[in-house]
């Protein structure tokens, strides 16, 4: 059993052409790769193909990987380069550098409905939550409901419906747990932009969950 082996050990085994080591890495990362590829190309089958090519490149490049970056960063960088090349070639896909400017234009619009707050001119506690619109605690919601298939599907659909740039950032950050730095490199956006996109994306997912979990709001 290799369940508890760390990545360096797995990579050393893989250099010796160990199949179980490969299986372990694939189980750990393949769905993330496909998810990442899908941010660049529309077609699920093409995303799968790019991910497979990435594994092949890993196998062939293994002897040159020195571990200066983490394996995950290396893997995701290979995939990103392939996906970008592919989307450029097909040229019907989204180009990431296009959204750097577009995203800042709605930076100032609020992420929570302003009607949930008191007026800025209110005499007592202006801009505070209105008593009947204040967020409720989710602590009492049963875990079965929170973690249900239906809740996760809702999150998935909400993310799918986000503008491309927000979808990309929340996927890489909160689903695949890449660092902000890695995301900025992959998407070629600034740190500030990355943060704004993440903020807006999370706010929309939170709102969708609130509507679903507490429909009376």
């Amino acid at each position: 059993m290799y369940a508890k082996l760390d990545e360096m050990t797995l990579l050393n085994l893989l250099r010796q052409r160990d199949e179980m080591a490969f299986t372990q890495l694939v189980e750990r990362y393949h769905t993330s790769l496909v998810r990442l590829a899908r941010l660049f190309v529309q077609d699920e089958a093409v995303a799968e193909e790019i991910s497979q090519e990435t594994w092949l490149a890993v196998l062939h490049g293994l002897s040159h990987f020195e571990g200066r970056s983490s394996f995950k960063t290396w893997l995701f960088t290979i995939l990103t380069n392939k996906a970008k090349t592919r989307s450029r070639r097909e040229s019907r896909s989204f180009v990431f550098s296009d959204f750097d400017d577009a995203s800042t234009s709605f930076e100032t619009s609020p992420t929570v409905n302003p009607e949930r707050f008191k007026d800025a001119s209110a005499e007592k506690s202006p801009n505070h939550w209105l008593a009947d619109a204040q967020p409720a605690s989710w602590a009492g919601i049963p875990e079965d409901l929170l973690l249900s298939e239906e809740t996760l599907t809702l999150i998935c659909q909400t993310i799918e419906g986000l503008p491309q740039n927000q979808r990309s950032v929340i996927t890489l950050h909160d689903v695949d747990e890449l660092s902000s730095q890695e995301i900025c490199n992959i998407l070629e956006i600034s740190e500030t932009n990355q943060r704004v996109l993440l903020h807006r994306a999370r706010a929309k997912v939170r709102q969708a969950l609130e509507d679903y979990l507490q429909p009376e709001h």
Partner: protein
Amino acid sequence: MTCKELVELITQYLEGTLPEEARLQMESHLSACEGCTHYLEQMRQTIFLTGQLREESLTQQQRAGLLDLFRDWQKN
């Protein structure tokens, strides 16, 4: 800091990129505001639940395709 301002700073707070002074203001606001405390909790739950999407597992077809690829490489 008002509630309306606080909700827009929450990502910076959670990512640890909020400047010290604003962070202290935020924490002082949170200690006295139930609505914002719930909002912060909801945001943490949202992030946690989004992370659950990671658990998606491979299909048999994907697994088989990758194994073929590996075995071809292994032979060379």
